[in-house]
């Protein structure tokens, strides 16, 4: 996806956009996963009073930030194919949004 070329460097923006999509997608996956698995929900209960939401949100944020830092390092001085990055980020964002919608999660879990 990346290519070195002359012109304005868009790598940092591409890294930020793609990983924002990744963060939202991971959040959505964890929402459905904890809803369907009691052991995972228990594992992700980092703060008892908040319940599994504490772990779901924390893990999603950590994955998002880690992926952002990593990709920013790799793409930091590069010009990348932004149209492809945008398309992938949009799909991830859309799927994340859908996965947080309870009726869709229930459908996936066969309820």
């Amino acid at each position, binding site marked *: 996806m990346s290519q070195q070329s002359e012109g304005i460097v868009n790598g940092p923006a591409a890294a930020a956009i793609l990983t*924002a999509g990744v963060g939202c997608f991971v959040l959505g996956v964890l929402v459905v996963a904890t809803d369907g698995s009691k052991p995972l929900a228990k594992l992700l209960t980092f703060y008892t009073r908040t319940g599994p939401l504490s772990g779901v949100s924390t893990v999603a944020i950590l994955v998002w930030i880690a992926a952002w830092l990593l990709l920013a390092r790799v793409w930091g001085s590069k010009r990348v194919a932004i149209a492809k990055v945008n398309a992938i980020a949009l799909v991830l964002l859309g799927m994340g949004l859908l996965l947080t919608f309870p009726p869709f999660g229930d459908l996936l879990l066969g309820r």
Partner: protein
Amino acid sequence: MEITFRNLVTIVHGMMFGGFFLMATFGLVVMLWRSMYERQGPGLTEQGHRWETAYLVAMVLLGWGAVLSGAYIVYPWYRAALPAGVVDLSGYPQRLLLSKPGTAGWHTLGMEWKEHVSWMAPMAMTMVAYVLLKYKGAMEEHRALRKQVLVFAMVAFLAAGVAGGFGALIDKAAPVDGGRIIHLMEGAK
């Protein structure tokens, strides 16, 4: 004029952090949408860029303030476990909603969606703010980037709207209330 401590914190969470974040996000969506149809101009002055930076940083802080105060202060009050023998559900909003078929959906759909989708808004707007600040003055040359941050800002607005809308309606059906009573001022005599 009095208010309970939990009610006050809920107002700070929903109306101050959430409400202002929603307004700031909407403002940015309008600004980005408008910029799609702008002719290339001289851009902002240095002071203009400083104001823009302050706006974007404040917006991001409000977004994170809303989700963090919601998840770690208000939500625990909302989902408090019901002690054995307690029959008055007024201090246990989640239990109160689930006790009747007519209100259960406010939790099973409303709160379940709100508590998760809301996190997407500050994540997306942090990215939007970063891109706008990183490429300030050069966004004209990055049409694809501008379109993409607009889409993310619109989704963030949707997510914050879902969270705020359901939050207000759920609090109406089963208020998060209790704690110390705070006396605000005397009413008219």
